[in-house]
């Protein structure tokens, strides 16, 4: 009897394939979790709500950084114990920033001692940048500040664009303290 060269390989129904693959993945995951344990990461705590929930900066080595909404940050504006840190490029800062902010070059390998001093003295530090592009900078600066001993460090959710879209005030001009902060 002549074999058909186009004879199909045995077929498993799509549903059976899905079930078997998912079952294998489930069993393997359970086994891995049993052997290695569940992964440890620093989770949210404190007053963070679901919406302003905690977040761990990707380069933070597990350090805990919390977000703050523009509304919550606005409520803190003007309080002497609160510092706003602008992590955007200098020209963006000069075009408009949260009043009283200090500017920091987020690409710098280390933060200036005067900025660290300011952050340590503040009860709350809010970092922000332009969330539409590379807002990782505010996470990075927040992490560096927190690791340096600043108490309550928050990242402004949505950055400067969210702040402006809420209609909160911005101030233009150069950074008065920047020379000493860089």
């Amino acid at each position, binding site marked *: 009897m002549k074999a058909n060269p186009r004879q199909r390989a045995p077929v498993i129904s799509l549903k059976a394939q899905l079930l078997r693959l998912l079952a294998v993945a489930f069993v393997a995951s359970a086994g891995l979790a049993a052997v290695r344990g569940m992964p440890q990461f620093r989770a949210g705590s404190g007053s963070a709500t679901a919406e302003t929930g905690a977040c761990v900066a*990707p380069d933070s080595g597990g350090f805990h950084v919390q977000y703050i909404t523009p509304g919550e940050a606005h409520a803190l504006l003007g309080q002497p114990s609160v510092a706003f840190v602008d992590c955007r490029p200098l020209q963006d800062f000069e075009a408009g920033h949260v009043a009283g902010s200090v500017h920091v070059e987020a690409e710098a390998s280390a933060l200036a001692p005067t900025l660290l001093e300011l952050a340590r003295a503040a009860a709350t530090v809010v970092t922000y940048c332009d969330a539409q592009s590379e807002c*990782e900078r505010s996470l990075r600066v927040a992490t560096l500040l927190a690791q340096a001993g600043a108490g309550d460090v928050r990242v402004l959710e949505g950055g400067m664009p969210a702040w402006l879209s809420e209609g909160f005030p911005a101030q233009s001009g150069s950074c008065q303290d920047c020379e000493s902060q860089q």
Partner: protein
Amino acid sequence: MTGAPAISASSLTSVAHWLIRIGLAALFLWTGAQKLLEPGAFAASIANYRVLPELLVGAAAIGLPVLEVVIGLALLVPLYARGAAVIVAVLLAVFAAAMAQSKLRGIDLDCGCFGAEQQSQVSWLKVTVNLGLAMLAAWTARARLSLPTPKKPSDATAAG
């Protein structure tokens, strides 16, 4: 007349399906392995998206990379390639949706796509690439796999 064996259009399609599956398999095996090496960092990346309850983040940080490795291998096995391609399409669409919601909410973060070693920002380009790959996976999922068999020259003559 004798010549090189002709390959039909359906065979070319079959080759394309295989190439896509091999490419997706390599991608998922690589990313899954990277994430398994640093489960803590991957858990932090998942938490950054703020779409999963904290209780599920740890489970997802183990389950997702394991699933990626399993379907990466299954894509190379004809018996399970369709099912794997369906899961790949769904996973990539879910990843795209998670990235899109973070961009829309103004949360800019590392996407966690390739584990902790290779950081890359969430961007609309990544959302688009994920959706494109999801569509390719869905296309291959529609095909029943068989290895392309070159036609004998006599067949090609007969067909022509």
